[in-house]
């Protein structure tokens, strides 16, 4: 058992932190939130050149041959920097899924372009009325039409769909039991996108599929039996979101402690008052426990071990820990923390969005209950 990062991971962390400190100021984040696309093509290309997009993919596709655990370190730094853009969609939702369930031919065709930063991917899973991540909530359907399939239906809360080149569409392939994943050309005919206005300023979209043709060759994994692959995608995404949240929470703890040291009232730093000290201690406990539960799940995913319970523990815990951390961070920052003059709001809005994504605490408590045999 070891809880420290390897030397290589420490280097990756430092490089990422320095790079993002330079390229991803809060001014930039704000611009991206207000922009239509939500990302900078130039920065995207730079990240590709740094090897970040391909980090956790095999070398034979042009990747860096590193692990999901290494990617976790990078995601943490991206969370710390509030990095906007389609990295999570492309890498965690798109590329890792293709690597997991795609055929060799599909990997050869799509992964090198993805890794070079030429193509953006995302996952089209959730639909209007979405409540839980279960197979029965998938109603968009693919019907067979000789060599092709035709997809119809509406997907909602799809990140970065408006700039994506490919969508991994989770659709019903049989009325009750069949789920399939199709790789659809996002720029093809029959697709309509609207970008939603969101709390975090990220670009979640409504995607309407109106008789969209998809060739049979674009089926990812096993037709009709795609739900177990989707569950794995959700697991990976949940852990990825936890990594981002850990980076976010760590930064918020540091900002809050710094503020408590500097801010004076009654002629002394507010951080010298025991009540503020105990708030900070509670925050640190939540941040550390969020980190360990997240990295435990990331390590297990990385090692290919069964980890349904550990992923559930992490996402349930981190989501609720983050609520507590932000309640205290805002209380300690006082009124300036609820204005847009201070940076705290960037973190608050993103953490809440991450908590809602890929299963909240209630959802994962039920998973844990099943794992306990209840």
């Amino acid at each position, binding site marked *: 058992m070891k809880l420290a990062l390897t030397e290589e991971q420490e280097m990756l962390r430092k490089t990422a932190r320095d790079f993002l400190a330079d390229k991803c100021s809060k001014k930039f984040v704000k611009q991206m939130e207000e922009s239509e696309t939500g990302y900078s093509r130039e920065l995207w290309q730079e990240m590709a050149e740094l090897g970040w997009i391909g980090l956790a993919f095999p070398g034979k596709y042009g990747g860096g041959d590193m692990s999901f655990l290494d990617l976790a370190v990078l995601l943490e730094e991206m969370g710390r920097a509030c990095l906007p853009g389609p990295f999570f969609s492309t890498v965690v939702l798109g590329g890792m899924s293709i690597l997991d369930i795609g055929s060799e031919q599909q990997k050869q065709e799509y992964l090198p372009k993805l890794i070079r930063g030429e193509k953006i991917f995302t996952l089209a899973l959730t639909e209007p009325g979405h409540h839980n991540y279960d197979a029965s909530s998938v109603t968009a359907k693919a019907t067979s039409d000789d060599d092709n399939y035709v997809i119809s239906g509406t997907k909602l809360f799809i990140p970065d769909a408006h700039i994506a080149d490919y969508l991994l569409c989770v659709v019903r392939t049989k009325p009750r039991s069949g789920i399939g994943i199709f790789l659809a050309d996002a720029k093809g005919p029959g697709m309509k996108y609207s970008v939603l206005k969101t709390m975090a300023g990220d670009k979640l979209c409504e995607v309407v599929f109106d008789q969209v043709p998809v060739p049979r060759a674009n089926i990812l994994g096993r037709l009709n039996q795609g739900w177990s692959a989707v569950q794995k995608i959700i697991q990976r995404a949940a852990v990825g979101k936890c990594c981002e949240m850990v980076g976010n929470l760590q930064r918020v703890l540091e900002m809050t402690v710094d503020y408590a040291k500097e801010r004076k009232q009654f002629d*002394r730093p507010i951080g010298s008052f025991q009540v503020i000290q105990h708030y900070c201690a509670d925050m640190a406990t939540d941040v550390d426990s969020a980190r360990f539960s997240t990295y435990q799940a990331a390590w297990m995913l990385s090692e290919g071990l069964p980890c349904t319970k550990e992923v559930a523990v992490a996402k349930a815990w981190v989501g609720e820990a983050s609520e507590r951390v932000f309640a205290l961070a805002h209380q300690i920052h006082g009124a300036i923390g609820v204005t847009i003059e201070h940076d705290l709001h960037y973190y608050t809005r993103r953490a809440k969005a991450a908590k809602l994504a890929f299963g909240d605490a209630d959802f994962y408590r039920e998973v*844990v*209950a099943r794992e306990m045999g209840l």
Partner: protein
Amino acid sequence: MDFSFSEEQNEFRREVRNFLEEEIRNGHWEPTCDAWVQGFNPGFTRRVAQRGWIGLTWPKDYGGQGRRHIDRLILTEEMLRYGAPAACHWFGDRQVGGAILSFGSEELKREFLPRIVKGEAYFGLGMSEPGTGSDLASLQTKAVEDGDYYVINGQKTWTSCASFSEYFDVYARTDPEAPRHRGISEFIVDAKSPGVSRIAMIDITGTEAWNDVFFDNVRVHKKYLVGEKHRGFYQVLHQLDYERSGMERLMGNYPLFDAIVQFAKENKLSKEPVIRNKLAQLQIEFEVGRLLIYRVALVMEEGRAPNWESAMSKAYSTEFEKHLAGVAMDILGPYAQLTSGSKFVPLRGMALHSYLGSKGYSLQAGTTEILKNILATRRLGLPTS
């Protein structure tokens, strides 16, 4: 990062489990809450000692096994999982032996460590006093030099296991003139010494949980001074870091956790959404706490004394224990109020025992408030004024 255990560690865990299961099968004891601190069972301690499982991390020179802190954590985790009666050796093994090892003279090491390892020397702690709780440096017990001896006068309180302790690890003021942190020394006092007396204190569960221990002109030879004279306060801080470090803060009531989950399953209560949710939340909190405690063992593995790390894990874990007891009481409903031995009492009264007993968990070995002060100042660097 690596969250796995080595094959040897997994094998060791199996060995400990097999041993404990056999103990239970043979009817030596039954799993009990708080057994690590209230389970007085010399036979069990002897059998544990025979396996070399006391002083596991200590050097072989003193009878230890020179094993890793993670191994000891695996051992104690399993003892707690099975609610094993380990109180006779717990304090010597967890902290007093370590204190002697860190600060004691060669003579003290030779006298006590091999006996602790053999399960032949039981220790209690003499830290708190009636007027001295969180502010430990204010202690009033005095030790005055008299030739080759110190003469100790005063009263200690909240001493766990005192009725069967053979030795006390006593902190007493040796320099009343010095600033209060700099005039305290640590002694090993034989409980049979003339002038030592004890009065049992009954806790809210009706258990004899502690004793008041009185020292009336107790003569202690100078060779039983632990470490440097007047440095006792710094030594006690070190010892407290270890006292707070372990799995007993999270798993002291594990038999109840096991039992309430089983109870909910057997009575189909676990199909009720509210109860499912509560039990799953407990499981989540348990798993998270376990990681915080493994972190502490890894700090020790690096050769550092755990400091704010054990403050964090202890403050976290005692809240879990309270939450566990509260949920168990709620699930049992009106039956929860029945005391051990009553007609209809569920789960041998464990829920009620834990519910009442857990009120003290966040007080002993450093109140949660003191632990958060430690976290705030030493981990986060917040100013004290």
